[in-house]
């Protein structure tokens, strides 16, 4: 096999991994601060994907443009979910939170089934079939755009949490819940904002993912599972960890498909997860629990 095939597959895996990373960033942000594992993550992503399709078919808006409005819509949805439904469960046992979010996932999937039906839906943009030829490399244009957007969104989010006063306040809540209350921070509002931000990432990712994957109401659990593998590999609560995890999973699956058999791609991503859990249980960039 020519060397260029390895390069092409590695680049393809890298770009796919970046999109995976963006899928997982929202899950990681929410867990890192609110300490709630969002089991409705994939279903929220399917909401964003369907909204992107509606906007594309109804108004002709390109999914790359609807990244911003859909992030805003999902932010509002996430804020409302946290403030109205999830907040009372913050201090309850984890199994209560689990049941609540699984129930929400089921409700979302079934509402989507009623509204949109079971058929797979997707969008076809003028660049859906485009690719860039760079020397021996053939780069999928859609994946390249989505990968670039992932880097930009993650950098913006990282900057927000690092430098913005609101971001610092949210980090304070994550670091020390009681301390944040003592210094007068409105923790419930900040939690809702964080959930909103995580959901906004999901909205942005969903808008881009619809360029790559057709959506059905049943897609949610598969997306949730991929996001879980990524954040556990990268480190729960770590944004760079989510992106790194996504890239690792993307490249591992691609190379496993090339060297072994494509049927075994998922097996290798799970194997990577097991190895990470064995030797670094907190994930590659996660903090060791004190």
């Amino acid at each position, binding site marked *: 096999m020519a060397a260029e095939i390895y390069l092409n597959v590695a680049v393809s895996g890298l770009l796919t991994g970046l999109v995976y990373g963006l899928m997982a960033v929202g899950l990681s942000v929410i867990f890192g601060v609110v300490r709630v594992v969002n089991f409705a993550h994939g279903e929220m992503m399917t909401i964003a994907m369907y909204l992107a399709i509606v906007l594309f078919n109804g108004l002709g808006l390109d999914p790359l443009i609807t990244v911003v409005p859909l992030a805003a819509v999902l932010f509002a949805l996430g804020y409302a979910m946290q403030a109205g439904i999830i907040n009372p469960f913050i201090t309850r046992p984890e199994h209560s939170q689990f049941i609540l979010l699984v129930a929400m996932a089921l409700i979302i999937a079934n509402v989507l089934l009623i509204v949109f039906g079971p*058929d797979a839906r997707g969008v076809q943009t003028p660049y859906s079939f485009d690719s860039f030829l760079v020397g021996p490399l053939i780069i999928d244009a859609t994946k390249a755009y989505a990968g670039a957007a992932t880097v930009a969104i993650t950098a913006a989010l990282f900057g927000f949490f690092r430098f913005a006063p609101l971001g610092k306040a949210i980090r304070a809540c994550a670091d020390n819940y009681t301390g944040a209350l003592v210094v007068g921070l409105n923790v419930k509002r900040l939690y809702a904002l964080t959930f909103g931000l995580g959901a906004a990432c999901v909205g942005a990712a969903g808008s881009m993912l619809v360029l790559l994957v057709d959506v059905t109401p049943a897609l949610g659990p598969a997306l949730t599972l991929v996001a879980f593998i990524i954040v556990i590999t990268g480190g729960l609560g770590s944004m760079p960890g989510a992106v790194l995890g996504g890239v690792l999973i993307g490249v591992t699956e691609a190379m496993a498909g090339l060297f072994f058999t494509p049927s075994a791609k998922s097996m290798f991503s799970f194997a990577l997860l097991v190895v990470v859990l064995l030797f670094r249980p907190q994930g590659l960039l996660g903090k060791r629990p004190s």
Partner: protein
Amino acid sequence: MSPTTTNSSGLTRRGFAVAAGAAGLLASAVGDFARAQGGPLKVGVLLPRSGAQAGIGQDCQRGVELAPAIFKELGLPELAIMNADTETNVEVARARAEKLISDGAQLLVGAFDSGQSAAIAQVAEQKGIPFVINIAAAPQITEQGYKFVFRNFPTAAMILSDAFANQKELFEATGVAPKSVVFMHVNDTFGTAMQQGINAVLPRFSMPYQIVEQIAYDPTARDLSVEVAKAKATGAQALLLVSRLNDAILITRELVKQRWSPMAVLSMGPGWYEDQYLKTLGKLSDGPISFVPWYDPHKRLSKQLEAALAKAYPGINMNTNHVFTFEALLVAADAYKRARSSDPKALVDAIRTTNITDNVSIGPGIQFNDKGQNDKLKNAAIQNRGGKLLTIAPKEASNAKPELPMSAYDRRG
């Protein structure tokens, strides 16, 4: 002789007695028939209406919707359809079959997929309810010695034998043949059965090409870029495929993105001729040749079914899903008519002696062998051209000439 009395309508007492007797006999006969039949036969139709195969399941449903009006014209009894969704899941298929039977289904039809059909076959056999498979090719389903399971669809081996024969016919007709192919197939029950079948059958046909690589993949995969890159890297001239709908679309997208136009795309299964494939990809859907169980466009019932489909679903091409789902119900209605009973054993006996020559699929008609398999079915080669599905082989059932090699993806405007 006593005079006969005539009433004002001119009917004599003797005439009245004869008429009343005849009416009584008729009423008695009708009553017997109605009691024996017990109203419409309750047929549970199991299809993957959601999940990865939802598009195909719903396409099969069109065959169900078209049946009542045509059956009425054919003088066949009414069927009471009980729909169920297998959710593209073997365990759900099994559970739904049990539920349908407990809800009163007297015969089962389905389920498009080999894995799901095999699970339903086990339930049907355990419960003693006849099961007529519409679409499923895994040979083992009718090799288990089942008494209640019937299949009016070719097995993988039958499909493959016909497919290779049809391929040779096409290569000879066009004078164009690939020297090497990559074989890509889904790794589910159907795909694996077909893969084993191809490896077993191919040596017998001395094809002009060699399989240079075999690539198995998950039918629910969301990205097939690696698979296509791997296939392209072999330098093969053509693709041989066993696919489903979603992966057929994904593979075509990757072929275009990775700038690879094989000489031919030869599909041995569903996916490449589905309406959703044609609609999603537009002009990029042109060219692939599918070797599939198909309909004979020259048969009377084919024309009737095609006209009914065009009226009910304008713009939808008739395909395997409609044809074989319709024919499965045709088997059920025909058996019910002859059995005059919904008793499972009577129905099974009637199905076993089925001999429907006024049918749709290619071949002499619908008959079942001792294993419950219609082994007389024939395949066709069909090519996507301009959003239509043209039959290009066998010659006796064809309505167009083949186009080989197919036009390159980057030269389609």
